[in-house]
C-alpha cells in the first residue's frame, strides 16, 4: 500500500488541515514512510488470535454508581471561551 495525493487530500479534509502543494508532497512522503514501517507488522501471523482492545487483561472496566457528583461551574468554563452569549458557547456558523 502506498499513499497518493488523493489520499492526502482526503485525510487533510477529514482532519480539517490545509497544506500547499509542497506541503502535501512532504506529508505524502512522510506518511508513506510511516505506513512502510508499520507494514512490518503484517508479517506476524495473527490467525486465530483475538483482537486486543487493551493491554490490561485482569479486570473489566471500572463502573460508577448512577449518582450526580458534579455541580454547575458554567461561569468558570465560560471564562476560558473566546465568545459566549446567554450561557451558550458561540462558534463560527456550522450548518451541515
Amino acid at each position, binding site marked *: 500500500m502506498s499513499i497518493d495525493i488523493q489520499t492526502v487530500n*482526503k485525510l487533510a479534509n*477529514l482532519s*480539517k488541515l490545509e497544506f500547499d502543494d509542497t506541503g502535501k508532497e512532504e506529508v505524502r512522503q512522510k506518511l508513506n514512510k510511516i505506513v512502510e514501517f508499520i507494514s512490518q507488522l503484517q508479517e506476524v501471523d495473527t490467525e486465530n488470535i483475538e*483482537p486486543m*482492545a*487493551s493491554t*490490561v487483561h485482569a*479486570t*473489566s*472496566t*471500572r*463502573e*460508577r*454508581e*448512577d*449518582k*450526580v*457528583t*458534579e*455541580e*454547575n*461551574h*458554567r461561569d468558570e*468554563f*465560560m471564562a476560558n471561551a473566546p*465568545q459566549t*452569549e*446567554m*450561557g*451558550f*458557547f*458561540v*462558534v*463560527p*456558523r*456550522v*450548518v*451541515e
Partner: protein
Amino acid sequence: MHPDYEMVIGLEIHAQVNSKTKLFSGSSTTFGAEPNTQANIIDLAMPGVLPVLNTEAVDAGIKLGFALKARVNRKSVFSRKNYFYPDLPKGYQITQFELPIVEHGTLTIDFEDGSTKDIGITRMHLEEDAGKSVHDFGDENHSHVDLNRAGTPLMEIVSEPDLRTSEEAGIYVRKMRAILRFLDICDGNMDEGSMRCDVNVSVRKKGVTELGTRCEIKNVNSIRSVVKSIDYEASRQIDVIESGGEIAQQTRLWDEAKGTTRAMRSKEDAHDYRYFSDPDILPLCLTEERIEKIKQAMPELPDEMKARFITEYELTNYDASVLTLSRASASYYERTIEAEEGKKHDPKLCANWVTGELFGALNKMGKDITQSPVSPENLGELVGLIQDKTISGKIAKQVFEEMLETGGAPKKIVEEKGLVQITDVSALDGIVKDIIANNAETVEQYKSGNQRVMGFFVGQVMKQTQGKANPGIVNDLLRQNLQ
C-alpha cells in the same frame, strides 16, 4: 405505492437511558436545564480527565438484551468514532463498534388481523450523545452550542432490513417504545428527543431478491413522521427508477413542515470515522452472576402480558396486543375487571369497552389513558350493569357519554335518569301486542316472507320505551306474536 414495487426498511432507534447521570461522568441528565449548566470537565474534554462508565446504563443494556431475546455479549468494547463538530468537544464520540453489548435479537410486531411478524435486531450498543448546536439564534454568522446533552447515555438499536411497509415500521417503533417503557429504562418521549429514529429505505421490484440502493433519512421525530417519511421516500425512489434514473446512496433530511426529504450528504463525502478502541476504557466484561441477577428481576413484558391476557381473559390476539402497549392501559383494563368487590366483570366485554369506546373517546380528546375522565372502577361498574342486564348496550353508550362529561358513576346516572332496562315480560308483551295491532299492513309483509320488517317492529318498541326495553326479550316476544 406503485403495485410492482416493494419497500425494504431498516430502522436505527436511539433511546436515551433514563439514568440520573451521563454515560461517563456524574453530570445530571435532567431535561430542559439552563444551557451548559450540566456539562462538567469530562463532558467538556478538559485535558487529563478520564471517563468512568455508568453502571445503570450497562444494566439497562442487559435488560433490553433479554427483552429482545438477544445475545448479551460477556465482553464488549468501547471505541472512538472520530469527527469534528463544535458540539463534540472531544473530537470523538465514545461508542461500541466491533463488539457491542447486545447482538442478534428479535422483536415481534402485531397486526390488526391478529397476525404477527418477527423483526430481526442486528445489534444494540451503548454510546454517548453529542451536545446541541443552535443555528437560529443570535446573528447569522454564528452557531450557539449547549453541551448539557453531551455524554448522555444512548442505546442504539439497529434492526435488520425486515420491514416491508411504512405501517410495519410504525408498529415496530410503537412496540419498541412499549418495551423500553415496560423495562423502565427509557421514557420513550419522541418530542423531547429521548427516543429518536433514523430510517433506511430502499425499493425493489417485487420478486427481486437483491436489495436496492438505500437512503438514510434523519430527523424523524414522531411515529407519524416515520410512516410519512417512508411513504414519501419510497415513492420518490420509485419515480427516479421509473423515469430511467438511478438511486444515489445518500443521507437525507426529513422536512416535517413540507412533508418531503432532501439530500443532506452523499456517500462520496460520507465521514470516515477512523474507529479504534478507546484506550481510556477497558473492555466491559459481564459476570454470569450479574447477568443472572438481572434476568431473575425482569418484569412482565408486553408479549408475556399479551399471552397471559389471551389465556386468562380469552382475548383476541389483537385486543391483547393493543391493551399491553402500555403498562397504564394494561393496568386500567385489569382494574375494570376487578372494579367491584366480589364480582368479576366479563373480561371480553371490558376489553371491548376499553379498546373501543374508551380509546376512541380519548383519541378524540387528545388524551392518554392516564388522563381519562372515566375511572377504571366506573367503567367496570358500567360493564357490570350491562352484564346483569340492568341496562342494554345501547343505553350503556348513552351513560358512557355522560360519564365522559361528568366523570360520574354509572349506577347513579342510570338511577337519576331512569335508564334501567325493562325486563318485565308481561309489560313488554302488552306494548308488542299494541304495535302489532296498529300495523296490520307491516304484519302482512312479515308473514309473506319479508323478515326485514322485524327491524321496524323492534324500532317501534324501543321508541315507546325510550330505548329501555331489553332487546333480547323484545325479539322473542315479537317472534312469538307474529307467528
